[in-house]
Structure formats: structure tokens, C-alpha cells
């Protein structure tokens, strides 16, 4: 699959934003000691809202006909993309209400604002899940059409959110809290595990082949001619191929940047290192998202000569 840069930015940046607000609101409402400070909660919420909004705006850039984007809310019953759009929009009033509560009442919120916060956290999680299901629901791409896709998106969103939360907390208090540090370490280790499992999982070819695609299941089939002299939409969108050794290098690089380096920086602690950890993780996750697209092989490639997907 051709990786559209706007989609990579959207899923990584807004994923981190949703992860941040989800963890922060839950920690706040369940009484985690370090998350009971008004300046920290306000800066965390604002940062997350900015990241989510930037991501959502980036996502509209890949539309070829954005003037009809408003119609994307209309097929909630069947389309995961529509569900994502609806939940992303419903999230805003609750998030803004929670933020207003923090502004007016500080960390000790009254019940109404607490409920708004809880709903906002829930919607953040659901939106993250809907984003992942856009990809996981496509039967045409076996690398995406499995349960690991939503697990990856949610864990990596929470992981980058936890790192962001650590960075915000470290900046506000000028010292990294042990509780948040342990949370971030746990989620980073989990993220790395989930990603490595995914890499192993997609390694083995299965399912459709050029034989089932053409219907000649009892003989070898070879493509002789694609039938056009220059690439069209199908080739450009689905024919995206990267050399295997380059993919391996990017895999290693993304694992190092997204998980290994933030882990080391977390163990060291400190304000500057936490900010560095966030940038490393976001860069690593951008590479990870790029791989998610570049390694996905659509079944239509079988008609264009691939023996297996």
C-alpha cells in the first residue's frame, strides 16, 4: 500500500493525543496523587486537544475531493471511517467541558465535570479503536485484517500518550514522577512486544494466491501482461514495493526509535530527556506507521503478477 504522509501523521499524532487524554483523565478521576494539579491537567488537556485537531486536519489532506468531507458522518451504521469521524467530533464537547471544569474548579472537580471527563476518556479510546478498525476490517489486506491491528493502534496510542504525559508532568513539576515513569515503562515494553509479535505474525504468506485470483487452481499461473503501458491508479496505490533489506532496516530503526531509546531515556529521567523521549517515540511511530502501509500487500497485486500476498 502506498503510505500517504497525511494519514501517517494523523494516526500517530492524534493517536498520541487520544492516549494522553485517556490516561490523564483516568489517572485524575481515580485519584493518582501526581495528577491532582490544575496546571498539569490543563496543559495536558490542551496539548492533547491540539495534537488531535492537527491530526484530524492532516487526515483531510489525503481526500481527493474534500468539499464532500462533511458527508463522512452519514454512514455510522456500516462504515468504520464514518464511526471514527462521528466519535472524533462527539469527543470535542466533552473534552472542552472537562477543560472548562479544570479551569473553573481546579483539580477537585464537581460530579458533572467528572462525568464529562469520564465520557471524554471513553470517547478517546473508542475513536482510537475506530481508527484501527478502518484498517482491520479490510479483508483485502491480510496484514491488516487481524486482531493485532486494533491491539497495535491502541497500545501504541496509549504508549505515546504515556510518554507525553511524563514529559508534560516533568516540565510542570521539573521532576519526573515515579508513578508515571513506571506506567510509561510498562506501556513501552508492551508496545514493543505487540509490534514484534505483529512483525512475526505477518511474515508467513497465507490465504489468496494468483491461482485463486485467476481461478486456475490446478496449475502454475504467471502474469504475461498487465494490459497497460504506464502505471495507473491501481499500480500507484497498491503496487508500492520496497526492497526487503530496506524494510528490515526501517523495522530495526523504528523499534530502536519508538521503544528502545524512550525506554533508556525514561530510566534516566529528567525534563530534557523526557522531551527527547517523546520526539524519539513519535519519529519511531511515524516509521512504524509507514511500515504498516509499506508492508501491507493488497490482494489486487495477485492480478498484477504477485504469486502470493
Amino acid at each position, binding site marked *: 500500500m502506498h503510505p500517504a504522509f497525511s494519514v501517517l501523521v494523523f494516526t500517530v499524532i492524534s493517536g498520541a493525543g487520544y492516549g494522553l487524554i485517556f490516561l490523564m483523565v483516568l489517572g485524575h478521576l481515580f485519584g493518582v496523587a501526581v495528577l491532582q494539579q490544575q496546571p498539569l491537567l490543563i496543559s495536558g488537556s490542551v496539548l492533547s486537544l491540539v495534537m488531535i485537531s492537527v491530526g484530524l486536519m492532516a487526515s483531510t489532506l489525503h*481526500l481527493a475531493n474534500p*468539499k464532500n468531507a462533511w458527508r463522512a458522518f452519514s454512514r455510522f451504521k456500516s462504515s468504520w471511517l464514518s464511526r471514527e469521524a462521528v466519535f472524533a467530533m462527539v469527543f470535542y464537547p466533552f473534552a472542552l467541558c472537562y477543560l472548562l471544569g479544570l479551569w473553573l474548579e481546579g483539580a477537585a472537580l464537581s460530579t458533572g465535570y467528572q462525568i464529562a471527563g469520564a465520557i471524554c476518556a471513553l470517547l478517546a479510546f473508542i475513536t482510537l479503536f475506530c481508527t484501527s478498525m478502518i484498517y482491520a476490517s479490510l479483508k483485502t489486506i491480510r496484514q491488516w485484517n487481524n486482531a493485532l491491528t486494533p491491539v497495535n493502534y491502541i497500545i501504541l496510542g496509549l504508549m505515546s500518550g504515556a510518554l507525553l504525559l511524563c514529559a508534560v508532568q516533568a516540565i510542570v513539576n521539573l521532576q519526573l514522577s515515579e508513578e508515571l515513569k513506571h506506567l510509561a515503562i510498562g506501556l513501552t515494553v508492551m508496545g514493543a512486544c505487540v509490534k514484534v509479535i505483529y512483525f512475526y505474525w505477518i511474515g508467513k504468506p497465507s490465504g489468496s494466491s494468483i491461482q485463486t485470483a485467476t481461478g486456475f487452481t490446478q496449475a502454475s499461473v504467471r502474469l504475461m501482461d498487465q*494490459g497497460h503501458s504506464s502505471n495507473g*491508479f*491501481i499500480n500507484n496505490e497498491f503496487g508500492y514495493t520496497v526492497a526487503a533489506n530496506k524494510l528490515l532496516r526501517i523495522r530495526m530503526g523504528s523499534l530502536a526509535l519508538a521503544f528502545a531509546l524512550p525506554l533508556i531515556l525514561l530510566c534516566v529521567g529528567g525534563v530534557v530527556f523526557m522531551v527527547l523521549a517523546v520526539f524519539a517515540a513519535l519519529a519511531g511511530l511515524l516509521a512504524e506507521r509507514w511500515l504498516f502501509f509499506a508492508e501491507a500487500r493488497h490482494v489486487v497485486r495477485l492480478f498484477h503478477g504477485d504469486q502470493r500476498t
Partner: protein
Amino acid sequence: MKLGLVVDMDTCVGCHGCATACKQWNTSGTIGPLSDKDPYGKDPNGAWLNRIRTYEIDDTPKSKTVHMPMSCMHCEEAACVTVCPTGASYKRAEDGIVLVDQDKCMGCNLCAWACPYGARELDPDQGTMKKCTLCVDRIYDTKLPEDERKPACVLTCPTKSRTFGDFDDPDSEVSQLVRDRAGKQLLPELGYNPVNTYLPPRNKPVVEVHQKASITQNIKGWVNKVIAR
């Protein structure tokens, strides 16, 4: 009604006549122009609703060249319709034709991702998704003579390897062809249940290749003859 096409891979010669006729008819049809980008330049690109691919099946001396024209299969389980967030993609209840409302499409490409047959192409100029309409603006046109109320690709095919009809009617030409010639769906394991069906090539006698016998085989043959006598 379940309208669709039967493509005979035995008789298709891969002339691209159907693709050209399709482009010609549909570029002025209900879904607006089928734009080309840089058509006479170094890297031309454009929306086509019909593509012909050529494969070699099996190995020599049994090998066979097969041409496979592919357009929208008008699947019964059309995932392109379910994933569409705007409601631009829809499947008509009355005849099963899958269409894109050009006024609603936002060009997100998700339907093309959901299609296993590569039937949907984004118009590089208009930014909306284009696909085979089964010439819906032709097959119901009562001003046309009745035998011309067929998709452009079917009418133009010089070897008559494309047949249009109703798959719900067991006595229609398409249903009979599918029965008699063991018609196949493409990628049946994905469960989209495509309506368009492909007829595999008929079995033809394999040309015998004369092989020279070795000396030992000749001697064995003579001995056998002597013993038999």
C-alpha cells in the same frame, strides 16, 4: 434481478476492444468524464473501468495464454459499499448494480482499498471514485433498439466472449453458460460473492510430442516381440 457479465476466457483474444468501448461510452455517461492526466506525455495516467490482463497457465507443452478482462464484479457482498463513509457508494436493490454517486464522493479511496478486484479507480482530475456502471445509462434506454440495450463492452466484443444478463433467472443465457461451462468466481475465498463469472478455457487435446526411443528400449522391444511369438 442480479445483472452481471459472463466472460469466456476460451474465446477472449485480449484485443482491448471492450476497454476502449467502455472508456468511449462512459466518458460521456452518467458518471461524468473519465479523465486522463498527461495522456500524451511520458507518464500517462487515467481512469479506466475495464482492464485486460494476460496470464500464462501451466507449463509447456500444456501451457495456455489466457486473457482476463476485469471490471466491477457487482458483488453480492459489496464491501466497497459498507466501508463508504459518505454514502456515495451504493448497491441498487432492483438489479444489484453497484454505483458511485459522484456528487457525494469525497475521494478517500477506502472503497478502492476494500475492493479485491481493482475495479475502482480514482479520477485523477475530478477526485472522485469511478467504476463500471454496467452501462446503466444504456441497458434501460428504451430509445435504443432492444438488442442494443447491453453494456458497451458486450456489444463491441468481436469474439462474443462477453455475455450480459440476469443471474437470478435460471434460464437466462448467462445462467446456462455458467452451468454448462463450470463458470468460476474470482477470489471466492474472500466471500464477496462476485456476480461476474469467468468461463475457463475448454479442454483441448494435448499435441503429442514424438520422442526418439533409446537403444536399450529398442532392444527391449525386440526381445518382447520375440518372446510374445
